[in-house]
């Protein structure tokens, strides 16, 4: 009963956030200067008749609220409108661009976690030793490294000097897994460096706090081996902030990999966002923002549920 109620409240709040984001985007595109009709018509833009016809065709002559409600009405049914520019459905464009972004993001997240969890565990266990200092200092440096600067350095080293990977370009999986992964290596590395550093720092500091807990001393006094204590006792209660940031990144990286996508010429959602912003292709911009906001909200919801799996105390509090 109460579980369902809290769940309902949460879902309503999340839906409200998505709605607010979409409304904000919608208003921004109307408020800010730059008219899509101008872009579509080019030199013909001064012709009032043509202009009115185009505006009517796009539904831009209707009042703001009507435009917004019809947009949301369509969005609920999976219709995000047509691109002003290419005449493609926005959903079609998103579906085309999403795989590359998803692959980039998933690979980067997976590799970052695989590297940072053992690294953080080792660093926390050996806190304040030379190895730990080396790890934390490196992580600190990587966080301060702008990803475009890193991308430039990576391309120079691995593509220009060593010729291990192509400098730019994207090969879809259909072109063969090897070629695909090769084309993804440098973009993924550019993202991994920063993510891994953030994750390592977060988990390390939480682990250090947990390792001071009485129950860790208790586990130690049972004569359990160190790896067992780190893995079974310390890791789970230390993973909450890592989990939160990790989850937020699933949403954030869809838009946050813009730079990497642009640099490496990967046809992803980030590149789509930039192109459509520059072309005043508002419906596509709105589609991208809506996609990002929705995934952000969904991921957050999933994290909330995961918390209650990880921590039985939360389970009781929310029940």
């Amino acid at each position, binding site marked *: 009963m109460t579980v369902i109620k809290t769940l309902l409240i949460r879902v309503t709040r999340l839906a409200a956030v998505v709605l607010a984001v979409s409304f904000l985007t919608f208003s921004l595109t109307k408020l800010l200067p730059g008219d899509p009709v101008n872009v579509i018509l080019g030199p013909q833009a001064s012709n009032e008749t043509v202009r009115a016809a185009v505006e009517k065709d796009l539904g831009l002559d209707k009042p703001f609220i009507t435009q917004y409600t019809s947009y949301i009405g369509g969005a609920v049914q999976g219709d995000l409108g047509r691109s002003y520019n290419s005449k493609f459905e926005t959903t079609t464009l998103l579906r085309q661009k999403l795989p590359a972004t998803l692959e980039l993001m998933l690979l980067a997240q997976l590799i970052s976690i695989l590297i940072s969890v053992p690294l953080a565990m080792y660093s926390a266990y050996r806190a*304040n*030793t030379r190895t730990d200092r080396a790890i934390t200092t490196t992580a600190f440096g990587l966080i301060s490294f702008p990803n475009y600067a890193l991308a430039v350095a990576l391309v120079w080293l691995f593509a220009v000097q060593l010729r291990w990977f192509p400098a730019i370009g994207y090969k879809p999986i259909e072109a063969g897994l090897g070629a695909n992964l090769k084309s993804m290596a440098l973009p993924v590395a550019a993202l991994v460096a920063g993510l891994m550093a953030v994750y390592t720092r977060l988990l390390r500091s939480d682990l250090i706090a947990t390792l001071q*807990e*009485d*129950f860790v*001393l*208790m*586990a*130690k*006094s*049972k*004569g*359990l*081996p160190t790896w*067992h204590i780190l893995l*079974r*006792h310390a890791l*789970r*209660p230390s993973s909450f902030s890592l989990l939160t940031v990790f989850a937020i990144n699933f949403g954030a990286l869809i838009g946050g990999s813009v730079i990497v996508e642009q640099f490496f010429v990967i046809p992803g959602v980030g590149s789509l966002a930039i192109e459509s912003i520059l072309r005043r292709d508002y419906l596509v911009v709105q589609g991208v923002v809506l996609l990002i906001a929705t995934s952000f909200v969904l991921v957050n919801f999933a994290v909330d549920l995961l918390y209650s799996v*990880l*921590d*039985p*105390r939360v389970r*009781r509090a929310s029940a």
Partner: protein
Amino acid sequence: MSAPRSARRVLGPAPEAGALLDVEGFRTHFETPAGTVKAVDGVSFTLERGQTLGIVGESGSGKTVLARSIMGLLTARNVQRSGRVAYNGQDLVGASKQQQRALWGTEMAMVFQDPMTSLNPVMRIGRQITEGLRYHLDLPKGEAAAQAVQLLESVGIPDPNRRINQYPHELSGGMRQRVTIAIALACGPKLLLADEPTTALDVTVQAQILDLLNEQQRERHMAMILVTHDLGVVAGRTDEIAVMYAGQIVERAPTRTLFSSLRMPYTEALLRSIPKLEQPSHTRLSIIGGRPPDLINPPAGCRFAPRCPYAQAKCHTEPPPLVEADTPGHVYRCWFPVGSAAGLEALERNLAEHNPAAEAAATGDAAAAAAVEG
């Protein structure tokens, strides 16, 4: 990892000769930026099989550090142990981490002060009991679980079959402490270190937990070190008591002897701070004025001298050695012991000079005791 485990099994039924635990000139120092903290500074005692030793002292006297350090649980890099701790004849101070760990859980185990924090909040109680059993004794899952249920039953937890699937937050404080005791007992240790096991608990539950500890100890013929700040706790439950102050044992005697003929003024002060049933309910408790000394630069003479009602000039300059009283097995560290002519004379001299510590001791007045702090 398997090597020390099998080695332990060979060691297991060791010859029943000599003391179980022999501590000699044991020190535990912490290197800190402010200086070396001498938390345990030359402690000696022996503990026979099946016997109970009470270690009593204020907070900050080093008793918790002593217990943890004997076991070897303090592994921070700034910890320095020296002197001798022999368990069953095996030296622990020079032993490697692996050798020490091989004893934890199976030979010696610890019950911690606060059961709210010493149980893992995100692990089921059953798992917390069985993980030791499965690791040390290689028990299969089902057998370990059955043994966990049995253990919970033996420490007086009702409905153990349900409890093993619960999380710590679903249990009361007393129940949780019973669980930690069950965990400590799981692999059949021969030495149990109980560090203030009742301090964090409700007064009504304290006696039950202490009784449980005593009962388990008798049944298992297990030796126990009971660390507490409350002389009342150890009164009827220990064979011997060691009183600690500022990292040293200042008096040690068989329990009965200590209560009948204590020598050390500090012990006297501790004793006076226990509420007594025969006192009218609003009698003020005597509090020991002042604070335990700085463990980086302890006082040059007797460490208790600054707060002692008996203290004379000599006490502030010359550290008293541990000397034997006429009662057997009784040692203390004082120039002017309680109950001696010298002590009585010292106290009277201090009273005549309106020494605040002496007046506080004489009148049992907490307000006067507070004045000693100034």
